[in-house]
């Protein structure tokens, strides 16, 4: 049962404060980079809902990320619309609809099948957007306007402003985090966690497992859609690679590296991996060799991820072992 531990809470507050004030002191390169990290963090968090809480190992999560990005591009490039109020809901809706269809088909299967089928469906979307001239083909689209929130004649929110986008992303990330915490405490949230631990017993107790999994899949897909919206807005560029299986694989690495089933772990995973990529990559041509070895090392020695390490360390420093604190009220 999900509980946000005290060290995690302290860490999160520190991170939130740091992110909130960084733009006052930081330079433009790192503001960009942090925006990217927050977007990826949100994306990874949405996958954690599936992997860490529902027990669904989806290797096609990038599909929803990409579809939402293309929805943004479609509005701006094809329809000439920049209204945030139109774009954001449609982007989320498009992802949710895809998640409904893909989920409905994949959830009929389990285990290795589920992994392969989610992967294959994401590749199908990838192939579709790559094939269609209308959607920009291999190169995708560049666009030059970004979504805006306009009321009357005043622009309330202009996401082409780097700082506005930064804080908008930050606000969405925080809201998504709170939403997931609330969700996981709700009856639905408890039920999906039950499904992860013991699917058979849940069914015997009267739960409709397929519905639970499908709804979880759709929520996760929609959140990935929010991340996709932000990504398209951030880069003003979409491309089929956004939904390639490398994208899905990378975000899975973020979840595991950070620590699945912790919600904040994936954020740490996104941060660690992106900073690592940003720094090592400029030093050595073959940095992916290190990356590969690193991923394998995480699997072998750190399956609980960074978050697991943090909680273990924090527990060690506690004065006395908690009597029954690990248990649920």
């Amino acid at each position, binding site marked *: 049962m999900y509980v946000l531990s005290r060290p995690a809470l302290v860490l999160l507050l520190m991170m939130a404060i740091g992110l909130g004030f960084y733009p006052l002191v930081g*330079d*433009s*390169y790192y503001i*960009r980079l942090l925006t*990217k990290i927050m977007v990826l963090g949100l994306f990874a968090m949405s996958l954690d809902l599936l992997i860490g809480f529902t027990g669904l190992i989806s290797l096609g999560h990038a599909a929803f990320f990409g579809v939402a990005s293309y929805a943004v591009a479609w509005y701006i490039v094809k329809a000439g619309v920049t209204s945030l109020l139109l774009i954001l809901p449609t982007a989320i809706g498009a992802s949710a609809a895809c998640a409904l269809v893909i989920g409905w088909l994949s959830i009929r299967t389990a285990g290795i099948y589920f992994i392969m089928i989610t992967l294959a469906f994401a590749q199908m979307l990838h192939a579709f957007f*790559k*094939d269609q*001239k209308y959607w*920009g*083909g*291999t*190169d*995708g689209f*560049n666009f*030059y306007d970004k979504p805006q929130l306009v009321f009357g004649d005043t622009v309330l929110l202009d996401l082409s402003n780097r700082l506005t986008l930064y804080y908008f992303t930050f606000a969405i990330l925080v809201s998504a985090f709170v939403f997931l915490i609330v969700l996981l405490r709700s009856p639905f949230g408890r039920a999906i966690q039950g499904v992860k631990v013991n699917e058979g017993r849940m069914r015997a107790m009267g739960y409709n497992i397929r519905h639970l999994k499908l709804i979880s899949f759709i929520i996760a897909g929609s959140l990935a859609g929010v991340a996709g919206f932000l*990504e398209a807005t951030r*880069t*003003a*560029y979409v*491309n089929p*690679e*956004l939904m*390639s299986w*490398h*994208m899905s*694989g*990378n975000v899975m*690495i973020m979840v595991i590296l950070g620590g699945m089933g912790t919600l904040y772990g994936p954020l740490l995973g996104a941060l660690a*991996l*992106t900073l690592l*990529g*940003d720094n090592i*990559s*400029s030093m050595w*041509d*073959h*940095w*992916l060799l290190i*990356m590969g070895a690193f991923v394998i090392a995480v699997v072998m020695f750190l399956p609980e991820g960074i978050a697991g390490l943090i909680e273990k360390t924090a527990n060690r420093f506690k004065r006395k072992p908690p009597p029954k604190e690990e248990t649920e009220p």
Partner: protein
Amino acid sequence: MTFLTTPVSRRRLLAGTAAGAAAVSTFTPTRFAIGQTAKLKIGLMLPYSGTYASLGNNITDAFKLRLAEVGGKLGGREVEFVQLDDESAPPKGKDNAARLVTKDKVDVLVGTVHSGVAMGMAAVAREENVLLVVPNAGAGDITGKMCAPNIFRTSFSNWQPGYACGPAMMKDGKKNVVTMTWNYPAGHEQIGGFKESYTAAGGKVVKEILLDFPKVEFQTYLTEIAALKPDAVFVFFSGDGAVKFIKDYAGAGLKGKIPLYATGFLTDGVLQAVGNDAEGIRNTLHYADSLDNPVNKKFVAAFKAMTKRDADVFAVQGYDTCSLLATGLEAVKGDIKAGATLYSTMRNTIVDSPRGKFTFSASHNPVQDFYMREVRGGRDVVLGVAVKALADPAKGCTMV
């Protein structure tokens, strides 16, 4: 975004070419004294790995060759290169270009080969108001919708070489054709330019075949061409895909039966690899290494001496990029921030290139001659000028 699966940026900080390093600048700075005496930072964002690696290297080496020829300095300033491998990966184009500008603080962006990546660079150049010179990528939008005072191209627009081939094919009596290319914007644009002039001249395109970029499994499509039996085939492929295509075309028994036409990228730089299979292919391009002019002869020899490789159209474009920058920066005495003065000088430059003299259009794309070439005895022999001083229509450009 795929920052994990393929290496991100590979930067190598390289000192400018040694020539002139000891010379002390003597001119009196007019503005931004510090800026001008400091080294000029040029960000070379080009493919140094993957399919286009050899193109990236040729552009880089020819650029440096020209830099050495003008004394190792641009507008009196020493040059420092920041080289970054763009891997021809469009998703990373913007992040990489932004990184060069905001983190490495380069003064000029030069790049790249792949159109998708170049589009990202153009977007960043506009956003950050940095001078960008494109030494290859032919995407129409770079000097079309995306055109800007600070964006120049020294190569071609995809529309140009295709457009040049259409009327010539009609003249050869090829009244219906099948076109074939990769399903990506560069392919669409090259075939589009061809179709425009070819159908205007009365020709008929029987079928347009598109295949996944960068797939090179052509068999299914060659089977289809053989069944359609058109008068000729017009294609756009380049690099390794071109090698494979030429070989498979011959392998499927089509060579000599259905004549093959193409834009010059099909044969440039690949003739050695394909041997006899390329004989008779006719193609249009703005350069041929066999061009008979003194600038070209000197360039071909110097490039060979420097790199031990043969010059090609890409090297020429890299060479001309440096020429253009040299002229522009000379006029403003190295003041890269001079803006309008710098850009209008560059706009009005007549580049004395190995390809022949060329000028720039209002959208900053070369106005240049296109040659009809034919592969004979393993070389592209120039048959004549297909179209003189061809200018890109610059669709969507607000500067025209």
